[in-house]
């Protein structure tokens, strides 16, 4: 093993070691040009293009041991015998840990967002390795620790498990009829009504009433989940690819019954997440357990199959969208219902029908979600949970209605663009969907489209153009931040936020630079470490706005504490003139009581704001597909999207976020599905060879743009760009495929055998 790496000195990897202190040796004489809005390069680019960026499985430790897992092969059962002799006998095996000898861990708290948002970190209620019960096909039932990764993997496969098989069902189609209405929660409306949508639908002169299905999806971040865990007495240090440092820390403290302050979580770089690294999955907990049992630093890097076995994916769904309209296209009725399973042992219900609340100004609206439990691993959030698959059904149904009416699909949307939130009349904080459609149609050349399906053939290619709306709500989470400015004009921002590729460190550096009047290059940001002020989780497209809100407050506090500069004087110069080395400001308390008070205050203010305004990002997609008339092979060949995402902090990283969402949406539309054997609940395609994510050849030039008009109700006018990109994409592709071929496909993915 290479040089030892003390866990106490890991501030550096999460720091952007920018040229602070080199280029900013002197105090700038001129005010710095605004950094916000510029397309500056990522601050972590040098680390990422040279291989220096270290991910969770890449921190060297002396005496490191390796863990690997044995996964259950039955759907539901009880372990009656577990033979570890062969595994234990392999040279290099240090320990084989099973439910027979694993130390007791505290049970995971039941997720309850009202009591504590942190309880949401619990991915599953199963006390894996503390119980002989098996609740899903793939549940870890043994942990092997060995001197090297190959031995650990071999030994894990040598553990022989005998089960008593218990009655089970993992068959969504068979169990669908047992679904029950989902309850509303503080974070989502599972149902809502305005007027009498069923009567209005029955009375409507023109209507569609359609059934859509979407399959399970997996995030497939390129970095498989990995953990390196080190105990030092009762103190635990964990390197983990997490997008929820704070939740992971408190969850580890709960499971191992140690004070939260004795757990340190480090995640300076995370190799993609998309929701798959939000919750705490067994691999992380069991690596910490293995380290505790063996007294060695232990690393587990899940195999790709291991990720499928032990980390949840997106819910599959069956959806109904029914729309009634007058002959002029004015909507009278809008009904959207969904049924989607979770694991009996946990899961995250997606807000699949929420788009019905916000998108179209129908007189009568009804939406409702139903859920059921299956004997499978928990489901979990995946990029734009709910809106992503819900917008597929909604946008495809609107397109079908347009064809029933003989109206251009853009025109139908514009005629039904509401002036306030359709379900409850709440004012929009900001909504420029009409402008998005107008700009997008013009950029794409939409007016040249012929209405009739199969009317744009070129040689052996059937050409189709499709459109759809995009929508994702704007959220905020609490964030604690400290800011420091020194007399040389260097600024340091500290917050335990996450960098999974969104460009957060870059964007926050830009925001701090402008707020403090220093050059972008003079700002250093520290993140990805639970030793820093508590940051928000990376989810809900909320991180940038959440950190920005506290960062701006901290900068104001800091400037106030420094005093009032003279004409032409910077705050750094004022510090220097008054003989002070630096000044620091803190937003948010790190004490247990302080945190709780902060959370309550934040939530109260946030809910007040949310009741007052409907805040969201939106956009318009336009795409071209070409379908081979003989083989049915469909390719997306052109894409234009225009978004209303409030202020854009960094044009370069925001464009990548929006494009990335569209690329994942193209996968959702055409190729992606997790195949679960309904008899056994076993995932049949747990690999990147068999689960098809888009590759270079699947992705055309994607022209993204935005209106760049700040949302007056959000910090700096930022709305968030991480998720809105994927919404509507599968709908746009389905609509383009119809235009190309005349076929309506309502079951994702839209593969060629369905087109032929």
């Amino acid at each position, binding site marked *: *093993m*290479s040089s030892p790496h003390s866990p106490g000195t890991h501030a550096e990897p999460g720091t952007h070691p920018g040229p602070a202190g080199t280029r900013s040796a002197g105090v700038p004489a001129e005010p710095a040009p605004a950094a916000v809005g510029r397309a500056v*390069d*990522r601050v*972590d*680019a*040098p*680390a*990422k*293009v*040279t*291989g*220096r*960026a*270290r*991910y969770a*499985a*890449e921190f*060297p430790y002396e005496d490191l041991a390796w863990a690997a897992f044995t996964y259950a092969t039955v759907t539901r059962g009880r372990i009656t015998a577990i033979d570890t002799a062969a595994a234990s006998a392999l040279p290099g095996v240090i320990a084989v840990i099973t439910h027979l000898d694993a130390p007791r861990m505290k049970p995971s708290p039941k997720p309850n967002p009202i009591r504590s948002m942190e309880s949401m970190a619990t991915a599953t209620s199963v006390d894996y390795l503390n119980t002989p019960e098996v609740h899903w096909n793939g549940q870890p039932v043994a942990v092997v620790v060995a001197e090297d*990764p*190959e031995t650990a993997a071999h030994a894990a496969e040598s553990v022989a498990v005998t089960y008593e098989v218990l009655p089970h069902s993992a068959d969504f189609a068979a169990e669908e009829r047992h679904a029950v209405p989902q309850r509303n929660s503080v974070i989502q409306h599972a149902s809502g009504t305005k007027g009498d949508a069923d009567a209005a639908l029955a009375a409507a002169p023109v209507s569609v009433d359609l059934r859509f299905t979407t399959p399970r999806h997996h*995030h*497939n*971040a*390129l*970095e*498989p989940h990995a953990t390196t865990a080190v105990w030092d007495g009762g103190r635990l240090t964990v390197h983990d690819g997490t997008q929820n440092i704070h939740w992971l820390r408190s969850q580890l403290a709960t499971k191992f019954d140690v004070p939260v302050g004795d757990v340190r979580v480090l995640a300076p*770089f*995370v*190799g*993609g997440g*998309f929701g798959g690294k939000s919750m705490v999955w067994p691999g992380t907990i069991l690596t910490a357990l293995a380290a505790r049992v063996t007294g060695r630093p232990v690393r587990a*890097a899940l*195999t*790709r199959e291991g990720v499928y076995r032990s980390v949840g994916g997106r819910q599959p769904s069956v959806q109904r969208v029914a729309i009634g309209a007058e002959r002029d296209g004015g909507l009278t009725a809008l009904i959207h219902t969904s049924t989607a399973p979770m694991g009996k042992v946990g899961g995250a219900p997606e807000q699949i029908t929420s788009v019905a609340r916000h998108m179209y100004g129908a007189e009568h609206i009804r939406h409702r979600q139903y859920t059921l439990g299956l004997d499978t691993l928990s489901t979990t959030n995946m990029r734009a949970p709910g809106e992503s698959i819900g917008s597929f059904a909604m946008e495809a149904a609107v397109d079908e209605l347009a064809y029933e009416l003989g109206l251009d699909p853009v025109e139908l949307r514009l005629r039904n663009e509401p002036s306030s939130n359709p379900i409850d009349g709440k004012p929009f904080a900001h909504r420029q969907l009409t402008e998005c459609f107008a700009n997008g149609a013009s950029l794409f050349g939409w007016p040249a489209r012929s209405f009739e399906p199969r009317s744009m053939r070129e040689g052996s290619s059937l050409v189709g153009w499709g459109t759809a709306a995009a929508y994702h709500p704007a959220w905020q989470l609490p964030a604690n931040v400290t800011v420091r400015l020194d007399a040389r004009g260097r600024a340091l921002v500290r917050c335990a936020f996450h960098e*999974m*590729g*969104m460009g957060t460190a870059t964007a926050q550096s830009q925001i701090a630079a402008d707020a403090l009047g220093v050059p972008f290059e003079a700002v250093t940001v520290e993140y990805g470490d639970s030793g820093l002020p508590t940051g928000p989780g990376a989810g809900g497209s909320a991180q940038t706005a959440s950190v920005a809100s506290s960062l701006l407050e901290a900068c104001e506090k800091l400037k106030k504490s420094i005093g009032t500069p003279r004409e032409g004087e910077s705050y750094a110069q004022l510090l220097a003139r008054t003989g002070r080395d630096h000044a620091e400001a803190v937003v948010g308390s790190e004490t247990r009581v302080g945190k709780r008070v902060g959370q309550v205050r934040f939530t109260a203010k946030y809910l007040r704001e949310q009741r007052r305004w409907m805040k969201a990002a939106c956009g318009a997609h336009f795409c071209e597909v070409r379908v081979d008339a003989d083989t049915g092979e469909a390719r997306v060949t052109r894409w234009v999207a225009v978004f209303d995402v409030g202020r854009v902090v960094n044009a*370069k*990283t925001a*464009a*990548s*976020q929006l*494009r*990335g*969402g*569209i*690329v*994942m949406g193209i996968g959702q539309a055409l190729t992606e599905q997790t195949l679960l054997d309904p008899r056994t609940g076993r995932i049949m395609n747990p*690999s*990147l*060879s068999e689960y098809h*994510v*888009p*590759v*270079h*050849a699947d*992705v055309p*030039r*994607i022209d993204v743009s935005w209106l760049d008009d700040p949302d007056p109700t959000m910090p700096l006018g930022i709305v968030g760009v991480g998720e809105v990109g994927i919404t509507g994409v599968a709908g746009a592709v389905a609509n383009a495929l119809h235009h190309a071929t005349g076929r309506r496909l309502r079951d994702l993915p839209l593969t060629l055998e369905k087109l032929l």
Partner: protein
Amino acid sequence: MVEVRLRVNGTAREIDVEPQVSLLDALRERLGMTGTKKGCDQGACGACTVLADGERICSCLALAVQYDGREITTIEGVDHPLQAAFTEHDGFQCGYCTPGQICSAIGMLAEHKAGAPSAVTEELDGDGAELTDDEIRERMSGNLCRCGAYNGIVDAVREVAGP
């Protein structure tokens, strides 16, 4: 155990490994060179791409013992205009596929220069295909990017490939 002698980024390295140890694990876990990434360990994602005597390979599908005496270039040994181009064109987000994309692009440009055709090359005789965006996409399709930074990667490769 088998003694394997590699030249890695110009430096002679000797390691004792079991025959089943992949070149990827030898680099990452025996030599501590973690710039090369493991995304699937079965040749499906390209994150582990390195150059062996200048040719791009998936190091997860290569056994370390097969490469005895060979020159291996990993991202840690790369000093190439592609790195600046990836930065300029934002050819990555999370960065996990980036070392593989860059090593793969270096190998791909050499293949193209040597006249190797791809599945979308129409003219198979002549001086070789022009490196259009479609050619770049086809030739880089073994390297997955789940963040979806494909447009930026193509732009970066095209800029470095030149006219």
